[in-house]
């Protein structure tokens, strides 16, 4: 039915089956939009955030999702600047994932703030000392860059490229894509870092506060490192997942190996940096604020297990697995390691947002607990559904995996040869 919109040489399921696939996600999207709508219309009292838990599920998920979306800029950097040509196989998918992650995060932020219509105030009266200003500027610019990078993927659709204007525009834009990749890397460096800086500068929250270099606390650099480390892992994970769901070979195995190696290396460096930073924080920074570090971990349920989990279980161990060629060559080790790396970064974001707010500063304050309301969960589900839908449409109608066609031909060739041998 829609075959003329689907590229030649690749197989996609029938339109009916595709409809069946998108139906539950569309339902989830509408439910989530209703939840978000309630928050916008009735106010943020619909959430379980309060004056002590000013940030909740949404901010934690925003940070996590933006860290995952770092795969877009990092793959672009590796491909267009460092010329790792094998990554051509996943760059389109990475751009879509990045776009989905960032646009979803921005959408949730619009619901999260009390007065979304005043969002332009940050641009008009920026406070250049605030990390949040930096985040706002960078993320807005980067979202624009991602949207521009997404355009060629759309315009290469089989039907759309028949229009000469679109074809030529895509061709010319692709010639300058390295400029956008460079700008994207620059912007990503700063906003991933500033997201870390958001918490590192909070002198009033000694759990999060860190010393650093010049105006940038150590969390600035740690967040950049962890985002760069988790980006390739997330790309690996999603590519594997899409291969599983679509029952197709989409990339050559060596692409997975490259992504795993890069991710493992950066994760190892990050784990080392984080360990050093944690030691400095435990022994110097925190006590100087009058808060011995052991205090933080005396509050149930956040014991020292969370620190060990974040740095060792979900940091060091996946790094080691991803760096060991024999282990990462096997999917049974590779995919869980990538998933653990992603979980580790998510845990780090959780610790910096939720745990920071849960711990009391004033001694006559209690430890606070928080669980998101259904409206908050619903809004998050809307973003997930939106992501799945955009990706599904892109996978069906655009060429997200250029190697798919070659791999299909090679698979057939191998089959034919084996048949001939059998005779």
């Amino acid at each position, binding site marked *: 039915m829609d075959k003329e919109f689907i590229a030649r040489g690749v197989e996609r399921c029938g339109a009916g089956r595709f409809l069946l696939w998108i139906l539950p996600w569309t339902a989830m999207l509408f439910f989530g939009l209703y939840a978000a709508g309630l928050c916008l219309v009735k106010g943020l009292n619909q959430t379980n955030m309060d004056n002590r838990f000013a940030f909740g599920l949404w901010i934690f998920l925003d940070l996590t999702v933006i860290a995952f979306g770092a795969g877009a800029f990092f793959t672009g950097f590796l491909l267009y600047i460092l010329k790792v040509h094998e990554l051509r196989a996943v760059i389109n998918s990475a751009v879509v994932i990045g776009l989905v992650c960032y646009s979803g995060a921005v959408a949730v932020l619009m619901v999260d703030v009390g007065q979304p219509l005043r969002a332009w105030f940050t641009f008009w009266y920026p406070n250049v000392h605030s990390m949040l200003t930096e985040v706002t500027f960078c993320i807005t610019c980067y979202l624009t860059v991602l949207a521009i990078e997404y355009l060629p993927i759309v315009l290469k659709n089989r039907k759309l490229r028949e229009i000469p*204007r679109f074809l030529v525009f895509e061709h010319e834009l692709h010639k300058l894509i390295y400029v956008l990749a460079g700008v994207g890397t620059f912007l990503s460096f700063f906003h991933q870092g500033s997201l870390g800086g958001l918490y590192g500068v909070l002198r009033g929250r000694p759990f999060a506060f860190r010393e650093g270099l010049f105006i940038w606390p150590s969390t600035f650099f740690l967040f950049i490192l962890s985002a760069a480390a988790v980006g390739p892992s997330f790309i690996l994970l999603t590519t594997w997942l899409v291969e599983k769901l679509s029952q197709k070979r989409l990339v050559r195995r060596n692409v997975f190996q490259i992504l795993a190696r890069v991710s493992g290396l950066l994760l190892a460096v990050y784990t080392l940096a984080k360990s050093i930073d944690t030691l400095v924080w435990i022994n110097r920074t925190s006590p100087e604020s009058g808060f011995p570090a052991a205090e933080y971990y005396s509050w149930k349920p956040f014991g020292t297990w969370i620190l060990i989990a974040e740095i060792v279980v979900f940091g060091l161990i996946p790094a080691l697995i991803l760096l060991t060629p024999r282990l990462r060559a096997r999917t049974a080790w590779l995919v869980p390691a990538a998933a653990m790396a992603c979980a580790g970064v998510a845990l780090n974001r959780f610790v910096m947002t939720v745990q920071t707010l849960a711990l009391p500063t004033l001694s006559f304050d209690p430890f606070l607990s928080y669980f998101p309301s259904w409206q908050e969960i619903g809004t998050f589900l809307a973003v997930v559904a939106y992501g799945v839908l955009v990706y599904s449409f892109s996978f069906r109608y655009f060429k997200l995996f250029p190697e798919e066609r070659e791999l299909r031909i090679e698979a057939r060739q191998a089959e034919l040869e084996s*048949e001939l041998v059998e005779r």
Partner: protein
Amino acid sequence: MLPWNYGFEWNTAHVTFLGAFYAVLAIVATTVVRTLLRTRRDLRTHRAESIRWQSDFHDLPPADRVCRHVLTGEIQRRECPNAFDCRACETHARLIAQHPVAVEPQAEDETLGMPFPLDRYYHRGHAWVHPEPDGSLTIGLDELGWRLAGAPDAIGLPKPGAAIHVNGPAFHLHRGRADVRVLSPVDGEVIGTGSREQGWLLRVKPAATGERAFRHLLRGAEIRPWLVREMERLQLVLTPAGAAPTLADGGVPMPDITAGYADTDWDDVCGEMFLCP
């Protein structure tokens, strides 16, 4: 944001921050504007067609992009760097100087069970061109091409007066909702149209004459190795996953190839064979 706004001061922090922001905006805007201007220039100079072929060629699988001299066995491995436009290729010029390929105006020759007259030049997209005595050229679809096309619903031919360019679209084959274009072997102006029964489809006044105008086309002894390769490619695209090979050696392709294979799609097969990714 701007100097006259509340809270703005000319200090390092403001200058650095806003400087970086405006610089990024400027770079992104410049890139987009440059692209738009170049697009307009390309469209005005009618480069859309050549860009389309460049893009198509780039999207072909590597196995489909092999140099003609790999087909004939002169080179082990080489991917065509010129999108099948050998007219400007130095390697090609060097090789044909060493081993020229002759075109013998004999009677019909059969290659792999199909008539492939050797008195004409063949394009890798399965169009042929035959120089007529009066200086014009006739263009048609070769035998394998017709068997692939089978029974098309319509053949979209350009009107007389239209210009065609090397590796641009010459004519279109329609079947159902699918549409496959066949690449043009030459530059020229269409002065007449024919039909399948007449044995030719287009009569063209060439834009250039001489040996160089046909340098990029296959001829003579190149035809056979090329067709062998084409049959291998066809085999790959016809065989659904998990099935046994269906074109036995020595077998002749049927008049309507895709009709004989239930699982294959006319559009897929023709797209692959006519270099339409």
